[in-house]
């Protein structure tokens, strides 16, 4: 694919860390190719176990790499010292894994916004994350704190909230957007309600209009197999994919007049404003 006209020139995005692959899926002494921000990237693991990544058009300049949260991250600019932290993953009894890396014909911010959205649960994730007639989205709080977006007090009735759930429940979610193209949610674990399962979507913007969505999972669940945990997330994401691929325009419009937000979209409204304030221009349609 010729992605040269998709090459990112936006310093805000170039300077971010971007996920490339789940390290559990990397073989030793092997090289793979992918796209990131319109650039062809080669990445892999040396014979001595060292991870690396380079731009195919600049093979002599090594890109910075980090191994965090189960993924290999790189940057095409001057990145911060580290990727955002997820303190929960340090808990010893937690299972952290990549549920799936799925290519979707959409933009990174559209995928983030969909992840933040509760209103679609009864329609897109029928009988899993929502069911009619429980369609109401109650008021919730959204704040920007320490350069991250947080949505709190998000309550929604869910018939089957997780792989380990038995019967319906009123779920409480907390959403966190620590990075313009990465989002997480915390919800009380069905097996230990005092603690939170963490589900993330770390988006690799291949171009402005195509992504690889890395589905991150960190749960407290001693019984379900990896396959069962993965399959649940894969079902959920496969329900979102056709919606994401039927949104027009593909890139997220930041001008609030282009689409029609309602109160339930508070997190999306704040997300779009936040992107505008960051001056982010890749994979969006900036406000005119």
């Amino acid at each position, binding site marked *: 694919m010729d992605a040269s006209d998709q090459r990112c020139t936006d310093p805000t995005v170039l300077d971010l860390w971007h996920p490339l692959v789940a390290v559990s899926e990397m073989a030793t002494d092997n090289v793979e190719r992918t796209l990131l921000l319109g650039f062809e990237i080669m990445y892999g693991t040396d014979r001595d176990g060292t991870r690396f990544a380079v731009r195919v058009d600049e093979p002599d300049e090594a890109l910075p790499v980090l191994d965090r949260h189960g993924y290999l991250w790189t940057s095409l600019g001057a990145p911060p010292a580290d990727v955002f932290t997820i303190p929960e993953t340090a808990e010893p009894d937690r299972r952290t894994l990549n549920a799936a890396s799925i290519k979707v014909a959409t933009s990174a911010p559209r995928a983030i916004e969909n992840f933040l959205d509760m209103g*679609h649960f009864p*329609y897109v994730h029928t009988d899993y994350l929502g069911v*009619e007639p*429980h*369609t109401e989205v109650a008021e919730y709080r959204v704040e920007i704190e320490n350069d991250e977006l947080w949505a709190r007090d998000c309550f929604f009735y869910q018939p089957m909230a997780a792989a380990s759930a038995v019967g319906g429940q009123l779920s409480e979610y907390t959403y966190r957007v620590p990075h313009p193209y990465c989002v997480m949610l915390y919800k009380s674990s069905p097996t230990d309600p005092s603690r939170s399962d963490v589900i993330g979507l770390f988006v690799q913007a291949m171009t402005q209009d195509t992504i690889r969505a890395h589905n991150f999972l960190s749960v407290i669940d001693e019984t379900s197999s990896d396959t069962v945990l993965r399959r649940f997330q894969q079902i959920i994401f496969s329900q979102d994919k056709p919606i994401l691929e039927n949104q*027009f325009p593909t890139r997220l419009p930041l001008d609030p*007049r282009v689409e*029609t*937000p*309602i109160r339930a979209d508070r997190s999306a409204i704040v997300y779009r404003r936040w992107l505008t304030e960051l001056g982010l221009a890749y994979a969006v349609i900036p406000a005119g």
Partner: protein
Amino acid sequence: MSPPPESAWYPVARSDDAAFRHVHQAKLLGRELAVWRADDGFVNVWENRCLHRGVRLSVGMNEGMELKCLYHGWRYANRTGGCTYIPAHPADSPARTICNATFPALERYGLVWTCLDGDIDFAPVDLLEGGGSFPLRALPFAAPPELVRRHLPAGDDHAGEDGTPRWFVQPVDADACVVYGVLTDTPAPDRRIAVLRRHARRLEDLRAEVEEIAATLPRPAPLVAAMEQADVPVDIGGPARTVGGTDQRVVVARKWETAAEVVAFELAPIDEPLPTVQPGAHIDVRLPNGSTRQYSLTNPAGDQARYVIAVKREPDSRGGSIHLHDEVHEGDELVISAPRNNFGLRRDAVETTLIAGGIGITPLLSMAETLAADGLPFVLHCFVRSADHLCFSERLDGLGDAVVRHIGLDPAGTAAQIRRALGAHRVARHVYICGPGPMLDAARRVAGEIGWPDEAVHFEYFANPNEIDRSNGFEISLARSGLTLEVPAGQSILEVLRANGVGLISSCEQGACGTCIVDVIDGDPIHHDVFLNATERAAGDRIVTCVSRSASGRLVLDL
């Protein structure tokens, strides 16, 4: 200079592409379209984009009279594209400004036609106006529309004993189009397949020839259609305020006696199509004698080619009903307001109970037919003096077992039946009540006694039976504009606001409809209206400005 391509009419589908309960995707001049036929036969041509989050409407569901977006279940009305329901906020009536971009549409010669610039009239094709025309198979071409047009057979080429074909081109994009053929005459049934085959083969040969030429030409840049912008200010602070629409002229297309002392009027548009109807909405009817009366629309969502209202003869009233009964006839013109909805229907109830007293059936009929179309469970209880007083009995019959008729009960019997109809309250059950004041009061009292919470009891009074005490004076201060105004005894807040140039939409002006409601920031309202329920009154954060007053010396309003 030739006119811009947007100002012409083009076919965008064959009529049979727009099958019932289906949404057809088309593209014209680079703009994607959703083409769908409603159950009343009307073919809608809309921009193929839900204005909420941009999802293609062609992946949505044609629910008969409404199109439902796949993503968040937003519903849009047949004909207008106006939003009728937002499931994330089931108690709110969507603002009138939430409306998808629609294009004019008509069906001729077995094809669906549209024009992106809405002000141009369709020019009939004389040869096809005879009525016997017969559409051929449509064929997409990967070639610029102009090139294809130049190569299409002209005049009477291909004419034969089975009629003369006329060719029409749908310019899809700069390098793509669809060719539709229509024969001037319908072939005899036993010849049809042969005729279709013959023309299809010729068109396929032509396509091969033209696409070969197109392949040698430089590829034109794709057309970029401008996106229609949503007409909605971003306001996430609270429910969208009811905004005013303009009045419009209608003609009485039909007037009939629907029950003893009740006449129904079917109102047809004259200049503009009628605005979007939401179940429970009412309109103001401006009478030739200068007065205004409110009437509920009986139309269910999406059924809005013509409005249907019913008027009970009220000999003691201010004269509006007498005038409509005696002086307004079929063919007469009336002026009406755009619909307003202060009695919105939630469509997220596990069960909905509708309780109608007499003429109070009108908004509840609109709700009942909407719920029936959605397949949602409900029971409609109709309380009337005698069987002759049942309005719209044919439409009630159409609702089958969901209608329970209570005939000739006294007040005690009515209260007993209401108690039985309501039963114990359970989560996600809602009741809607409309009828004469005493019955409504009784129904609300019964609901309260058996534990129904205020937020599950929805009601609409015809009129305010309260005696309104206007004897005290007080001050209002307007938080946003900084104005402070004196409301003297004998004048309403609404009147004082109007006199000082603060425009506020109102309708009944007697505290029944809730249109002129305003948020209270500080102060202690005395409620004289019958719109707010007990919980809302106690909260004291809203006031119906046409009747209610202040116990404190000063009221601070969010204006």
